[in-house]
Each structure stands twice: as C-alpha cells, then as structure tokens.
C-alpha cells in the first residue's frame, strides 16, 4: 500500500506553498477583488515561468510531463492560497479538453502556448440562468461559424481562446475551438459572487471555429472532461478547506470571550472537529480521484464524482463555519473570511452543482457490479 504522493511531488508542493506565501497570493486575491482586473497578471507570468500550467502536459508538447499527480499537488496549494490566476481555466479545462479530444495538429498548436502561459484558454459552456445543464444549450455552429451567448465564462475576460460547447449541423452538441481575439466575438466582464476570479459574457456572431473531436460527440466529451477536471478542482477545494479551517483555528486560539479563548468552548471545538472530519474525508476521496486520473483507470467516473461531492461540501462547510467562528468580525470586508466563502461557492458550481454530481454518482453506481461495493462488516453486538 502506497496511497500517497511521491517525495518528489511533496517537495513540489512545499515549493509551491513557499512561493505562494512569499508572493502573498491571498493579498493579491483581495487586490484583484477590489480592482477592475480579473486576475493578477504578474503572478500569472511567474507561475507560467515555473512550468506549473503545463505540469500534466507531456514534454513533447512543451509541458513538464509530471503527469496529473503533479497538477493535483499544485492545485491544492493554489486553492489554499486563493491565487487570483486563470490556472483552472487554462490547465484543467482548456488543456485537458485538447489533450482529450484534440488532433495531433491541435495539440501541437495549442498545448505549448498554454504550457508556457503565452495563451490563456477556457471553456465556454453555460448560457445563463435559464439554461442549466446541457439539454437547453442553444449556441450553434453552422459552416464553421459560431453564434450564441455564453455566460458565465471563467476568465472569459482575458482568455485568448475558448473551447465552446455548441450544437452542430445535426443539432447534437460538439466541441469547438474559438479564437476570442478574432472578429465576431464581443465580450464584457460580468459581476459574480467572487470578483477575485474574472468571468465574462461572450457573444458570438458568426465567429470562426474549428471542431475539437468528432462531430456530435460533445456530450460524451464534456462528461469525460468534467471527470478529469472534477479531480483537479477537488484539490483546489481541498486546499481551500484546509486554509479556511486553519484560519478558524488560529482565530479560536487568539480571540478571548468570557475570560477565555473561544477555542476552549465545546461549541467551537465540536464545530471545528466536524470541519476537520469533512476535510480529511475529502482529502482521502481526492487522493483516490488523483490515482484514478493518473492511471486513466476505469474507476475514474466514480472516483471523480465522489471526490467532487466530498471536496465541494467540505470547502463550503469550512468557509461558512470560518465566518461563524469569527463572529461579527468574520462578516467584515476587512477580514479575509469572505474570500474563502466566495471561492468555495464559486468552485462548488464551476462544474455543476453537488446535486447534479450526486445524481450522476448514483447513475454510475447503478451500472456497477454490486458485489464490488462496501457492505456490512464485522459482527453486530
């Protein structure tokens, strides 16, 4: 049994943590939140120079070739630091989509630029509050021209290209790469609950596209892409949950009320113990997801859904109880509690809600041999 990251990857995680602490990524997140910028361009350049974006991209395409386990440990640290950079859009969504479905020519064209940070990529899927899920998507491609409106598109304000989900000639969904700097694309930043990460509305009017993967395969490809991204997002959420728990713990030790540290009250202790338990369960499930992703194992769809539900719920729990532990001060703009709270909900919806993932999880279990599931153990007293 060796259910752990290698010493080499643990060292990478330490280096990442040191770097993000030195750059004070949390303060940069606040700066972006309070400004008109959608991300921290200087921090993003440094991250690109260190080769993090291309951690899972093969060396042949300009990446670091560390595999997905490398991307997981970086995600955990980026998530914990709340770094305001388009990392997830470029590395988890755009690069993964191209590695999953791209032709050799597309990989050669896009992956090195993504890995080096020369281009920012993203995924353009959602079409506003009246079109949840894939079934109601209306954006369409005809004669290699895309028309329709996509919002919210993560990092759509700064991305150079997007992988767009749209209906093809047969009305079936497909994936298309669209250059966001070309004619026929209008974009504007939109307000979201977490302005430390930029989001945009993209309006396409006969914008030129190239197909990514086989025509009509969009639904299937999105499902596979989301399984991969779910594991990577789970590590960001795990890092966020741990950071919010650490912040709550620190405050519970420092803050005195009724003549004693509030961390000595069982009301606070039990709350934080529950956050710890949720975080550890999420960590274990995320590790299993990392294994399945790195091996491209048949267990990935189940492991990814499990990791996503556990991590999304843990980060949200940790973030909201961090505010609660801080009391009134936790509700102020000046304290950082709200940064975690915003990010927790943002990430929880980034690939679709926990409700949808739980339903997907059960669907996948229904297709499984029941004998492989964990059942009654031991002896009842």
């Amino acid at each position, binding site marked *: *049994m*060796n*259910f*752990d*990251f*290698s010493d080499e990857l643990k060292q990478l995680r330490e280096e990442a943590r040191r770097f993000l602490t030195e750059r004070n990524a949390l303060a940069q997140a606040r700066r972006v939140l309070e400004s008109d910028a959608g991300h921290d361009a200087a921090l993003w350049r440094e991250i690109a120079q260190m080769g993090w974006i291309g951690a899972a991209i093969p060396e042949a395409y300009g990446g670091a070739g560390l595999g997905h*386990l490398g991307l997981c440990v970086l995600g955990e640290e980026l998530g914990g630091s709340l770094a305001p950079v388009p990392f997830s859009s470029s590395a988890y969504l755009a690069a993964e989509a191209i590695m999953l479905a791209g032709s050799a020519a597309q990989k050669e064209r896009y992956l090195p630029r993504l890995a080096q940070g020369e281009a920012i990529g993203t995924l353009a899927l959602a079409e506003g509050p009246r079109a949840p899920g894939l079934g109601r998507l209306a954006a369409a491609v005809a004669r290699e021209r895309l028309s329709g409106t996509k919002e919210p598109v993560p990092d759509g304000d700064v991305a150079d290209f997007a992988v767009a989900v749209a209906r093809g000639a047969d009305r079936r969904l497909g994936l298309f790469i669209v250059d966001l700097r070309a004619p026929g694309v209008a974009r504007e930043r939109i307000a979201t609950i977490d302005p430390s990460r930029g989001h945009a509305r993209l309006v396409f009017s006969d914008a030129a596209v190239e197909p990514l993967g086989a025509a009509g395969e969009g639904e299937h490809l999105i499902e596979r892409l989301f399984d991969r991204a779910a594991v990577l997002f789970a590590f960001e959420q795990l890092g966020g949950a741990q950071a919010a728990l650490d912040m709550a*713990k620190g405050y*519970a*030790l420092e803050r005195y009320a009724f003549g*004693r*540290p509030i*961390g*000595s*009250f*069982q009301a*606070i*202790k*039990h709350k*934080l*113990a*529950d956050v*710890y*338990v949720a975080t*550890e*369960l*999420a*960590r*274990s*499930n995320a*590790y*299993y997801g*990392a*294994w399945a992703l*790195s091996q491209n194992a048949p267990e990935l769809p189940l492991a990814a859904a*499990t990791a996503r*539900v*556990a991590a999304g*719920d843990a980060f949200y729990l940790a973030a909201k109880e961090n505010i609660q532990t801080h009391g009134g001060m936790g509700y102020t703009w000046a304290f950082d509690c709200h940064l975690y709270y915003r990010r927790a909900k943002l990430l929880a919806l980034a690939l679709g809600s926990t*409700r949808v*993932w*739980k*339903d997907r*999880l*059960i669907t996948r*279990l*229904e297709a499984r041999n*029941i*004998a492989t*599931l*964990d*059942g*009654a*153990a*031991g*002896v*009842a*007293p």
Partner: protein
Amino acid sequence: MDFDDTPEEAAFRARVKDFLAANAERRAPGSAEGYRTGQSAPGALERAKDWQARKYAVGFAGIAWPKEWGGRGGSAIEQVIYNQEEAHYAVPRGFFEIGLGMCIPTLCTWGTAEQRRRFAPPALEGKEIWCQLFSEPAGGSDLAGLRTRAEKSGEEWIINGQKIWTSGAHYSDYGILVARSDPTVPKHKGLTFFFLAMDSPGIDIRPIKQISGHSHFNEVFFTDVRIPDSQRLGAVGAGWQVALTTLMNERLAVGEAPGPNFREVFELARGLELEDGPAIRNAAVRDQLAQWYVKTQGLKYTKFRTMTRLSRGETPGPEASIGKLVSASKLQEIAAFGMDLLEMAGIMTDPEAMPAQALFQQALLYSPALRIAGGSDEILRNIIAERVLGLPADLRADKDVPFNRLPAGKR
C-alpha cells in the same frame, strides 16, 4: 501511488490466505452471516475459544505483539493484512478484543516480567478472557469521577463499589480495575489501578438489558473484594496514568461501526417500489444514497492512508481518529432511512420476512450504543479539537478541588 503490497507483505498475505482457506468458511458477500455468528448464539464462546487457539498455534494471534508477550513479533501492517483477510470469513468475533486490545497491553506496559509471562500467552491463546472495569454510574465520559473505593489493609486492598457497562464480565476470567484510593485529593490524583480474578469472593455480576433486548454489558458490584497489593499496576495514586494506556489502546482497538452499510441500503433502494415508482429513481433517495457513498469511500481511503503509514513503519496520523465518529452516526442514519423506505412495515423485525434479514431494524436499536461506547461522539470531538487541532482544554470546575468536596448531581 498504488495499492499494492510490498513483496514481504504479499508473501505474508499469501500465508494468511492459505491458513484461512484451510481452517475457516468464507462469508457469502453481502450476507448478514456476521450477525448470526455474533456473541448471543449458543456455543459461540466455545467456538471463539477454539478459533483463537488455532490462530495462536500458527502465530496469527497477536501478530504485532513482541515475542516476549507470546506474540508473533510482526508489524502493525501485518496485523492489518490479517484482519482484512479474516473479514472475508465467517469466524467468531467479539470475545477477545477488549482483553487483547486493551487489558493485556496495559498489563504488559505496567506489570512485572513475571506477570507478562503468566498472563499474556493464555489471553492470546484464548484460554483466559479479560474485561475492563472502568465506567461507573457516576463516571462515564468523566471516567476520573469514579467512586469505587480501594482501601489498603496490610498487603491487600479492599474494594467496595459498583462498575457498569462492563462488556463480557459474565464470561471473563480476569479484569482490570481502576478505583479511588484517596478521596481527599483532586480526582485524577486519587486513583489506583489493579487487576483481579473475576471469581474473587464479593463480586456480583448482573446483566444489563439493552434497548436491543440483548445483554452484552453488565453491572459489577464489589463488596469487600480483596486484591493482593502485588496486583497493583503503577504507583498508588497513579492510576490515571495507567488508565491512559488503556484508553489510548482503546482508540486504536475501536474500529468502524458494524452493520448495514452503503451496499445494503443501495440494494434495498434498487429492489423496492415506492408509490411513485422504484425507490432508486426518487431524487431525494438518490441524494441521500450519494452522501453515504461519499462518506463510506472517504473512510475506506482514509484507512488506506493509515495503512500507507503503517507499511512504512510510521505511526498512524491523526486522520485515523475519525473512523468511529463518522461510521457510528452514519450507521444510525442508514438504519433509520432503510426503515423509512419500507413505510409502515418498516417497524417489523422478523428476519425471515424483512429485507436484509431485518438488519436495518436491528441496527436502529443497537446503533445508539456505538455513538457512546469507546469514546462518545462528544468526547471524540473534544479529542480531535484538542489533540489534532491544538485547541485549549475546556475550563474545569473540578480542577484542584479534593474529590470529596466536589458537587455531585442526583444521577
């Protein structure tokens, strides 16, 4: 990252598999057999003793114990491997866990070499069974609030008082006991630790009928019971330090709550028609099932993380402390939900008539015990908060106050 045994672990696992295949019957997957091989069945004790003796004979009892205690001198990971393999078999369980998990390790830590030689091997072989005389009506979670008196008389101690929740006292040969030797000092400082034969004159054992209808626990009354001073473990007044050895071993020995798990409730939902169609198609049912699956898997992979540490010869990390806390309340919830799915008939308990041989109904009645025994949910949360997160101890009203000056409630 992989789930493979090292070559040495694989070789050990193969030996365990051979032994089990030749000596025990495999449990049908998903069956409730474990329940029927439980302690209440007639002849269960004899079968358990026989099984323990066979394990001992081939060196599979006390795998991680030192050879000096009669153990195999193996590693913690080898014990885990053995447990994993044995879980696939319908073998008797439940009689030796307290003795081997808590009593003998305490005795071996604090007793003399002669006592280790005398008591450890027979316990390991299943010849002598031990119980733990700790909890009292006035001292459960607050164990140090116990009142059973120990008074020195020459080279003997005289014990008077009452213990409660003593698992297996009625079939045990020996017990470990913590009692109050000095009520005039603060409570943790006035305790002394002993072991004694359970057939000592003056011991009266009465079974407690549980809400499940079974009687797994006892009340044990002491009237002028005499214990030689040579059976004292640790110094006079140092009983709390000795008890901590037992409690630390208890945390390691207490595993996950046994009973219907995700698979049983998932199977039930798949096989059941509700008023609006199959239960498994109901969104509320699916949502609930998914939550238990996520928790079940989280516990499973948390154990893998612990095993990874053991496999490297490291001690388990703090994550190992969450198993019972999570699984006990999950079991209680799964039991209640399984019954809800059966609507009005959910209250019926006939194993012949009910899905999963009425495991859900049985679990509803016994699961409350699992949230209390071996460290209550509340105590476990305190332990996580204090020892893992490093939060300060609660303010104590009983600190530095002589025990006999402490206020006591009516119960």
